């Protein structure tokens, strides 16, 4: 089997200790949450940190708790299995619950964490490969090289955000609590991303995601997640779409959010499309018509590239289908939209 590079492991018991350990080394250090992405990436020599700061001993980073104001705090170390099986989360934030349930397979959901999924490295078929494999192509700009094999002659890395939970958290307006050398900050998840496949986040890898905060949902908030992939399990998304719908007492949508993933470096919010849904009423023609318009607009706004495996033209053809199905699922309280 592939060998891990050599590194030292630190086991802090507080966030502050973890930050200190991250900075008290000249070379590269990396946080280790569930390890389901970091370990294979280290085996592929995508990361060769001298130090790994393992987060399993930091109590503050665990737990899913409802706050007094009705918001929800999810410790970044909560596993995807925890999130997927949490009854209150499932009721209040179905898109998140469904997205967590569709990440990888059961064993990896038992190890992988929500924080790790948010902070997941971008993926590309020319990047998530062994050192030997990448060397045969002369590497790529994301790691060890200068070229792009997705867009020949391209100057910007277009590796894809492939984290299922990110679009769900985007639609829910989640806030991320980070710790760094200067203290704690909170930022809306929408502000996290930048359009650079090499590192698609505006925080440095030395900053630690401590918790995810979800605002209290409206009285009739609905949601769903749709995921396109080849197999019924394990695979990363070939396309993902999260939906949030807020309905008033009359059943009319007064707010909505859509966000797609597995396209380019950032999760892709579809604001114009979401706006089309406002004022429509599920079960009535206004909604049915809006769904068609939203699906068509989503197909215009989402342009899958040949960055991740699979036929990108087919992925594009599926944007409207999955958007439509996910909208209907959200309105009906169903989902996830997934082929099995």
């Amino acid at each position, binding site marked *: *089997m*592939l*060998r891990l590079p*050599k590194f030292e492991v630190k086991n802090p018991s507080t966030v502050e200790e973890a930050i200190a350990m991250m900075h008290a080394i000249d070379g590269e250090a990396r946080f280790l949450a569930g390890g389901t992405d970091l370990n294979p990436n280290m085996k592929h020599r995508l990361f060769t940190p001298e130090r790994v700061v393992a987060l399993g001993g930091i109590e503050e980073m665990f737990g899913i708790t409802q706050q007094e104001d009705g918001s929800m705090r999810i410790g970044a170390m909560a596993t995807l299995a925890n999130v997927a099986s949490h009854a209150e989360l499932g009721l209040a934030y179905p898109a998140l619950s469904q997205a967590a349930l569709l990440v990888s*397979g059961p064993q990896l959901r038992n190890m992988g964490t929500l924080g790790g999924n948010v902070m997941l490295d971008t993926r590309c*078929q020319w990047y*998530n*490969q*062994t050192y*030997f*494999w990448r*060397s*045969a*192509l002369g590497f790529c700009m994301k790691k060890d090289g200068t070229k792009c094999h997705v867009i020949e002659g391209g100057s910007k890395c277009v590796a894809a955000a492939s984290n299922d939970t990110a679009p769900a958290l985007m639609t829910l307006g989640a806030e991320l609590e980070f710790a760094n050398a200067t203290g704690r900050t909170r930022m809306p998840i929408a502000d996290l991303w930048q359009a650079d496949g090499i590192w698609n986040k505006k925080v440095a890898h030395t900053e630690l995601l401590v918790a995810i905060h979800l605002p209290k949902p409206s009285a009739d908030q609905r949601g769903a997640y749709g995921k396109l992939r*080849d*197999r*019924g*399990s*394990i*695979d990363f998304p070939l396309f993902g779409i999260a939906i949030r719908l807020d309905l008033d007492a009359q059943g009319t949508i007064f707010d909505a959010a859509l966000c797609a993933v597995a396209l380019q470096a950032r999760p892709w919010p579809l604001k114009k499309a979401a706006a089309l849904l406002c004022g429509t009423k599920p079960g009535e023609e206004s909604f049915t018509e809006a769904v068609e318009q939203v699906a068509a607009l989503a197909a215009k706004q989402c342009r899958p590239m040949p960055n991740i*495996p699979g*036929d990108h*033209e*087919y992925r594009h*053809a*599926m944007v409207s*289908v999955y958007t439509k199905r996910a909208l209907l699922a959200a309105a009906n309280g169903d989902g996830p939209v997934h*082929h*099995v």
Partner: protein
Amino acid sequence: MAARDQHGSEAPGDQGFRVVGKENRKVDGLAKATGEAIYTDDIMLPGMLHAKMLRSPHAHARVLSVDTSKAEALEGVVGVLVGAELPIRYGVIPWTPDENALATDKVRFIGDEVAAVAAVDEDTALEALDLIEVEYEILEAILDPQKALVTPEPAIHEGRKRRDNISKHVDLEFGDVDAQLEGADIVLEEDYSFHSTTHAPMEPHCAVAQPNSNGRLTLWSSTQITHYVHRALSRVLELDPARIRVIQPCLGGGFGGKSDPFSLEFVVAKLALKTGRPVKMLWTREEVFYAHRGRHPMQMHYRTTAKKDGTITSVDAKLLIDGGSYSSFGLVTTYYSGQLLTGPYNFPNYRFDSTRVFTNKPPNGPKRGHGSVQPRFAFEVQLDEIANRLGIDPIEIRRRNFIGADTETVNGQRISSNGFMQCLDEVEDASDWKARHGKLPHGRGLGVAGSMYISGTNYPVYPNKMPQAGVQLKIDRSGLVTVFTGGNDIGQGSNSMVAYLVAEELGLLPTSIHVVSADTDLCPVDLGAYSSRVTFMVGNAAIDGARKLRKQIIEAVAKHWEVEARDVRLMDGTVIDLSEAARSMTHVEAFHLAEELFDTLGSTGAYNTPELGGDYRGGTIGASPAYSFTAHAAEVEVDTETGRITVLKVWAAHDCGRALNPIIVRGQIEGSTYMGAAEVVLENHDLNRFGLHSGPSLLDYRIPTSLDAPDLEARIVESIDPEGPYGAKEAGEGPLHSTIPAIANAVFDAVGIRLRHLPFTPAKVLKALRELEEQN
């Protein structure tokens, strides 16, 4: 065929079968489940070194120089090996030795082996690989088989008689194919293609070599073909085979992917000899994908003529086979691509023109259903289309063309037992075909297909008149019977079969049998686990050997009791006197009596095939002592918006002759069907535009998870074969074939599209649906 080779298909005594046909445990089942079983990588020897392979990053290049001096200087490196130290070529087929353990002159695909390092641990060996400097002259890579066909230069293999990139060409005609065009009621001509898929066994390839102080060498290897590895090692190492011992430990799956001699076997052996220390090499999953030897991609053109009533009058096939970079079993593949299609339907006239070409890709070889899965797909889809055009039920057209039992195919293959009609009946009944085919709502459909496969062939890879399979039996005074067989149990359960057969013959419980297998020092030669030959051939050899002991034991007991031999019954570990029912003894006592009378108890058994096959060049390739038959019915659902095909259920009926253990037979039917279904909708051993495997990992190579597997229902059909061990035939490969066309035909029933090019991706389905819409 000698008298030893046929034993009848009935139970040895008059009490009926006591072991055979029962759902006995596999002999190694518990050891595997508990972790007790020793696989090659479990072997740790004192002072053992770990070896790693340096591989070519170029698809086609000349190796100008390899400088290992820096690697050798690294602390912890004990031995370095380059191609010049193993200059002798090998190949599983003796006529086409075109492989070197490490490149001597050229590299022919990305991943081809160039050099190796043995060091104190894996990390040091890997570090040393980075220090090896290789100078390459890059050559044009040929990736497209069509291009290989018409491009003689650059020749991927130089110095052959042929100065081109054609690996093998076979053109055979039986009857007069073209004459059938005139007057045919229907002529159907179409192109089909089959993509590349690989075996993906759970256990990656691994080999350990140990030099012995007495000048001998032991190699443990995860191989399906101990005997051929033994021969190849002797040839390449230039070492007397009597000084080499090859052992196959417990094996974690092969499916044909471990049927060639592989570079790691020669490399660890040579490094062990060079360093004087044991050496292990375990391949990564990525390396297993490069080693490949998987399903050959084929581009196939079929033209079938038939009468109005559906009777086939001729079949004409032209096939282009992508061989990848080496010959491997390619000579056989090329023959199999045509030779194995001539049943279960009667082809009065048949022609096939098959060409295997070299390309700069990982070498293709034998994967479960070697060479015949691809043509079977094409033909069964074509037959379905003929049925549809003629308005004949797809099961009915298959019945009408049934070739029958005890007959001969157009290409001279002898068919003995044949339970195909019952297979069709079974799947028709199980799928509720009559009520549902053609009548399900749009998007749902049922399809059917049939096939046949060999139970070994009488082509022994290297010409010799010795038995194909041998066993040796030893009886211990404790009551334990040890059977030594060269056969390779690769998880298919062949050692269990041997235990059941010997237990049946000697009237013992299977727990009284110990099977020692695949160890060239201890076991008589068997040719190995390929072509579905082990149960049939080793099974017959086991009966042959055990029957001799049975006779001695009965004789000794009869003499002791002073009764007729026919009054002595061996059953379940007890010996019973039928003349005077109160008298019995244990089998241990009986063994003692026999040993007193005959001295130390032991026997040998052997099997060789009868003279078979057509009287023409290649006529023996694919000639089998018995053929298995299969029918599949598949039910699919097609999502017309996403193009996704969901295989809901597959019913598989397989004629395996007598089922020696029904639970193992069902396991083989289910495993084959599952593998076939995966080849239709998921698996793709795809190369990218650089000639590099597009995703050599179990993440990107999509083998089905349990969620992706269809519901399976396996039904066993037992056409007792006159020459099989107690009437048994193969069950390990046949039941893959017709899975694939059955699904293709079900898609037609569901949504009216004919998919002829595998794999059936959702994108292809959507495109075909659009085209259909435009036509209407």
